[in-house]
């Protein structure tokens, strides 16, 4: 099981009236991702400038966007790419999933 961290934006989205009814489902999906972040919820690695981030399915119309520290550190790009790096990796277990956002698929 991976560790988890969340952005404030993720929490705000989870609490948004538009998504509030899906909170339980979102929690379950996040737990599935924490068990198997590379395969759960039809996980897809993103492309282009969003590389090293992933999209997992919350529903057909909604996506959970996240990144895995392990994947980021393997690439060794956490220093050079501002779209990837966190404030600091120090003290963060390598097996951590960082949940960024809930987005709409359209």
């Amino acid at each position, binding site marked *: 099981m991976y560790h*988890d*961290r*969340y*952005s*404030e*934006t*993720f*929490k705000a*989205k*989870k609490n948004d009236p538009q998504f509030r009814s899906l*909170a*339980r489902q*979102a*929690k379950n999906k*996040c737990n599935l991702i924490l068990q198997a972040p590379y395969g759960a919820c*039809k996980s*897809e*690695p*993103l*492309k*282009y*400038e*969003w590389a090293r981030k992933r*999209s997992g399915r919350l529903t057909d*119309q909604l*996506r959970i*966007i996240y990144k895995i520290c392990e994947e980021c550190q393997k690439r060794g790009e956490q220093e050079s790419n*501002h*779209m990837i*790096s*966190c*404030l600091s990796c120090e003290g963060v277990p390598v097996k951590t999933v*960082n*949940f*960024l*956002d809930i*987005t*709409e*698929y*359209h």
Partner: protein
Amino acid sequence: MREWRTAEEGIIDKALYLSLLDLVAHQKEEGGTIVGNKIKCMKLPFLVGYPMFEKRSKMFNLTFFQYEYGPFSKHIYEVWGDLEGVGCLAFIDKNWIELKDEGHRIAHAFIDEVLSRTENRIFLEQLQDVARKYGRLAPPAIMNIVYNMEVYVLELRERLKVRDVPMGVNFIYTLDDNEARSKLEIEQGWLETLAIELNPANKHSIVRAIEDFHEGRVLTHEEVWSNVS
């Protein structure tokens, strides 16, 4: 055939449209970034889409019908709104479309990684063909070419020049997968990426989320889920 698009088809249309504008912009001798006015930028995807629709090749999913200045698609307005919202294009004097650097960058990546694949070459060639033939023409010349095109109007079951098609009648419908003889192939990872990159609300939200991590606004499991059973 239908007049509505799925979410996925809408995503594909935005990426194809951006690629078309990029290829057209490269036709300009002075390398200008203004692609054309709204009328030209409405007719260009029709010039790409109609021949493909006739061949039952599923590429653009835009529906076009006869309106005041010829073939018109409401979907193009959605595309313009989203591409403007993510900084790929800008309107000058509310009528002229300028492709921004961000639009060029995304278009190049999409062309290189998706449209240049062997199975998608016919679709890229169709975009390049239209850009080459019509990219440098002024809007009135393009209007004239479109008005004189012959099309088969499904609703009326006859071939007509575009100028003779009655108002409100459809030229192009969205093809269902089982009606298409060929179809643009896009891997799911690219669709997921475009759903972020070309959707203003998604893009701005994720940029904010990344800033949260940069600036230490990071929450624990408990802080997020304590009120959810």
